[in-house]
């Protein structure tokens, strides 16, 4: 089995991209704050909420359902990630790999069926 040789140095362009992206954001934010005129007043610094007087604390407890949706997203996210190395090796493994992935996905589909049946994603 022959593979492409890959070294960490191949990632240098990505590092440069990150540095440029971060640098752009940091410098623009820094310089707009430094260069622009600043006349703060009580009203200007007030919390703005679509013109309506803001009421109450911003930190109010919210529905646990959002958390449930997020956690289910993470689980299916992990599931999908396992398909990347599988897809790369799909031809090499032939039917064996295909069936293997079917078993994996089948088990998770049972979980999906459970979620749907339980109405966990329903928003009453």
């Amino acid at each position: 089995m022959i593979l492409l040789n890959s070294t960490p140095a191949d990632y240098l362009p990505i590092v440069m991209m990150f540095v440029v992206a971060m640098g752009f954001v940091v410098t623009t934010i820094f310089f707009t704050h430094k260069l622009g005129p600043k006349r703060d007043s009580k009203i200007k610094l007030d919390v703005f909420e679509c013109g309506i007087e803001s009421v109450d604390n911003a930190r109010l407890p919210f529905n646990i359902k959002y958390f449930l949706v997020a956690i289910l997203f993470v689980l299916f996210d992990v599931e999908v990630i396992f398909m990347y190395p599988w897809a790369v090796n799909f031809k090499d493994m032939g039917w064996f790999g295909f069936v293997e992935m079917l078993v994996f996905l089948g088990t998770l589909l049972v979980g999906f069926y459970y979620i749907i049946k339980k109405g966990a994603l329903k928003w009453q």
Partner: protein
Amino acid sequence: MSQIAFYILSFLSVVSALLVIFSKKPVHSVLYLVFCFFTIAGHYVLLNAQFLAAVHIIVYAGAIMVLFLFVVMLLNLNADIEPHKDNVLKVSAVVAGGCLMLIMTSVMKTADTMPIIDSTNQIGVVKNLGLALYQTYMLPFELLSVLLLSAMVGSVLIAKKEDIENLPQ
């Protein structure tokens, strides 16, 4: 070259990890943790474990941190209702943390030194990793789906309110 990158990355990850602990605002801690995860992904790239690096960014920096933010919001951390920790608690926390540090340092001292994986090692590349995962480690892979299934069922069971009226008898 790779050594310089290692030192820069290590410095950044240690500093960001310390900032996670020392920043007063929980949301800032979360952001520093995201940065820390990115630097650790950089370490993975230096070890030529590219798949691991990508997964680390997608799952940890992307998904797990969302959950962390949710938890921070759910905790309802108001400055005025934050409970004041008394001194007994602080002393016991210091003792417990010190014990943990003692154990960790002694373990690190006695542990066998691992051979350094040089950056020409190709096992972390997606193709090799896939072959190892789907052929040599087939059973753990299939068991992983059971683990994910149990996590799904558990989270639904804990978070979902049972509507008792519509329960089938």
